[in-house]
């Protein structure tokens, strides 16, 4: 699960979800359980081509002979002897019983069957879904379904969840085993010997020629070619995000706001008499731009002007662009390769390479990034990764606003913000590594094969993430702008600003007004950056303020997740580090520039 909008389903199972009258989807990581789940229940999930997308369990329902039965998507697990937190979750869910649907990767039968046999030992009612069957055929892997079913003593159905093949048969098989008596537990002496024996009886491999996929796979995984390839992929992704984001702003959102929305707002302004409390709240104040007194979407600070423009006009295009590019990288299966390439670098920060994936998710929104740290092996790694994400990883909203604010002065200033953040990151990571001495487990990671992404899956995933942004973020921005408008009139801001002005000036060399923006950043980072726009600061001061906004505190949503995932004590520790980091960074920047 890597999406803010589906956090609600990731907590505890409903009471109805316990007991034997339920369906459990169990299988190795990255075999397509989430796609099967989504197909069976119609509940949208985020699935990707790398292990560990589902780190908690999702619950949906399926109709079995007219009866609604809960379906649980259990996190991917290689074995029933847990080796990581996700596997512990899986074991706990299985202990309560249910009808097991074991999703098996047909291209990789040998490794997958180890879990199948362990499950069979439990003697629960069970169906094996031989998934990715189309890819197996394509690769010349032939499986004798009847023989496999006979050896395992449970029904085996060939499926391709992405295309929908075999899912009807799967449901029929589930209905069948639900009413049949539970099968006898399968006994075996040596797990791997039994797996080997089954595989030799049911699998036939056809010789196949090297394909373009094999070539690209070799290129991206060998050090000599993989590193340049990785740099190229990262640069191309950044360029693509910028290009898509800017194009949506220039050709869609800006024209919509200027030609369709401006007349509406102007009419509203006139109807409200051009001033007054309600006018300032909804429309905001008139500002002088290019010598003309007008409503300015980024500076007027009204709910219907700046509020809507920040969330839909400035930030949403980059949210779309970021998740479109991320979705392609995820589904193609590139991210684990990046994790391998960066493993050496990440070790210097007390993490191992796989932490790259939560961090990259954090660039979209810190909340799913922090949740995704669950794939990491030890509490220490999880804490370091979550702290680094909340301090040094600007989310898409913040990045979009920084781009809008600084790009007009030159891309160099935008690059400077990232460069400073990178320095903060390495210094903080090194400190964290040195201070929290603990055993760092080494990487054991399967690199999934490249897969051609399905456009409909990509579109569905993008839509789910965008919906999450619209539902979670947009109302907060609108309310935030309204609060700023009201407080602005009360004069509270001025007194707060006056109180901390000397500190801001002497320590960080920033004008006192920026203090308000940084305090408001706790609410939402994008409105805070929006507040910097009307101040007319020189570009270097904007760079400083942007970095301060990024490092000070994560927004309130990320904070809630930190608290839930790590508890009060560790969150307090992280908070201390945030305060120290922002002070140190502010002072250092003031001395440097």
């Amino acid at each position, binding site marked *: 699960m890597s999406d803010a909008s589906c956090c609600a389903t990731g907590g505890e199972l409903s009471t109805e979800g316990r007991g034997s009258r339920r369906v459990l989807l169990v299988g190795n990581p990255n075999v397509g359980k989430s796609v099967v789940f989504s197909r069976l229940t119609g509940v949208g999930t985020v699935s990707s081509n790398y292990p560990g997308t589902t780190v908690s369990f999702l619950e949906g329902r399926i109709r079995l002979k007219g009866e609604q039965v809960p379906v649980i998507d259990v996190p991917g697990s290689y074995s029933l002897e847990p080796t990581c937190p996700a596997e512990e979750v899986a074991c706990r869910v299985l202990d309560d019983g249910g009808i097991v649907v074991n999703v098996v990767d047909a291209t*990789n039968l040998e*490794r997958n069957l180890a879990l199948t046999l362990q499950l069979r030992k439990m003697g629960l009612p069970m169906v094996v879904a031989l998934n990715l069957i189309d890819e197996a055929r394509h690769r010349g892997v032939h499986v004798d379904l009847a023989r496999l079913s006979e050896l395992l003593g449970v029904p085996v159905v060939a499926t391709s969840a992405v295309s929908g093949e075999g899912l009807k048969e799967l449901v029929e098989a589930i209905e069948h085993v639900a009413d049949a008596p539970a099968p006898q537990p399968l006994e075996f002496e040596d797990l791997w010997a039994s797996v080997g024996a089954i595989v030799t009886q049911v699998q036939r491999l056809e010789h196949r020629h090297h394909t373009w996929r094999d070539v690209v796979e070799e290129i991206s995984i060998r*050090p*000599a070619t993989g590193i340049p390839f990785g740099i190229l992929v990262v640069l191309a992704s950044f360029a693509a995000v910028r290009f898509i984001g800017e194009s949506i702003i220039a050709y869609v959102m800006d024209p919509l706001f200027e030609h369709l929305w401006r007349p509406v707002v102007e009419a509203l302004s006139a109807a409200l008499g051009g001033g007054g409390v309600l006018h300032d709240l909804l429309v905001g104040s008139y500002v002088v731009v290019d010598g003309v007194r007008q409503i300015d979407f980024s500076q007027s600070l009204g709910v219907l002007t700046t509020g809507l423009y920040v969330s839909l006009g400035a930030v949403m295009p980059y949210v779309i662009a970021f998740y479109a590019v991320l979705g392609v990288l995820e589904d193609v299966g590139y991210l684990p390769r990046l994790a391998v390439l960066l493993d*050496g*670098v990440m070790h210097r920060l007390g993490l191992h390479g796989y932490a790259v994936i939560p961090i990259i998710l954090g660039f979209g929104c810190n909340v799913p990034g922090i949740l995704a740290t669950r794939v990491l092996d030890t509490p220490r790694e999880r804490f370091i990764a979550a702290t680094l994400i909340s301090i040094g990883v600007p989310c898409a909203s913040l990045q979009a606003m920084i781009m809008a604010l600084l790009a007009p002065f030159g891309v160099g200033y935008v690059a400077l913000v990232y460069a400073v953040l990178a320095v903060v990151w390495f210094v903080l990571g090194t400190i964290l590594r040195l201070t929290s001495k603990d055993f760092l487990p080494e*990487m*054991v990671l*399967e*690199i999934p094969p490249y897969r051609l992404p399905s456009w409909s899956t990509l579109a569905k995933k993008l839509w789910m993430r965008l919906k999450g942004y619209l539902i979670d973020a947009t109302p907060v921005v609108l309310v935030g702008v309204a609060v700023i408008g009201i407080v602005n009139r009360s004069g509270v801001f001025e007194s707060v600003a006056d109180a901390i002005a000397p500190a801001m000036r002497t320590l960080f060399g920033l004008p006192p007004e920026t203090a308000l923006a940084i305090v408001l950043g706790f609410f939402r980072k994008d409105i805070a950056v929006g507040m910097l726009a009307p101040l007319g600061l020189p570009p270097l001061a904007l760079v400083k303020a942007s970095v301060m906004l990024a490092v000070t505190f994560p927004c309130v949503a990320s904070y809630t997740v930190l608290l839930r995932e790590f508890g009060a004590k560790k969150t307090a520790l992280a908070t201390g580090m945030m305060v120290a980091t922002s002070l140190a960074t502010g002072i250092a920047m003031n001395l440097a520039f």
Partner: protein
Amino acid sequence: MCMLADDEPATVVQIEGGRHLAARLHNLGILPGKRIRKLGTMPGSGPVMVDCDGVRVALGRGIASHVLVQPSRDARDAEESQQ
């Protein structure tokens, strides 16, 4: 495994260390008797890349050093000398 040359096929002989490590590697299909091919080592004390039955796996160096392998060339030599 760390000393194996790139692209050199070999057979896994033994996995040293605890049961836990052996179980984790088994989960990925790396077990004694399996033929593997080393693809290379990432710089900066990065992981060793291995191909095992068409599955590509990244192993940290410490872990890789616990996997004892026999290069296929040696195995063939040994067979020949026995004959």
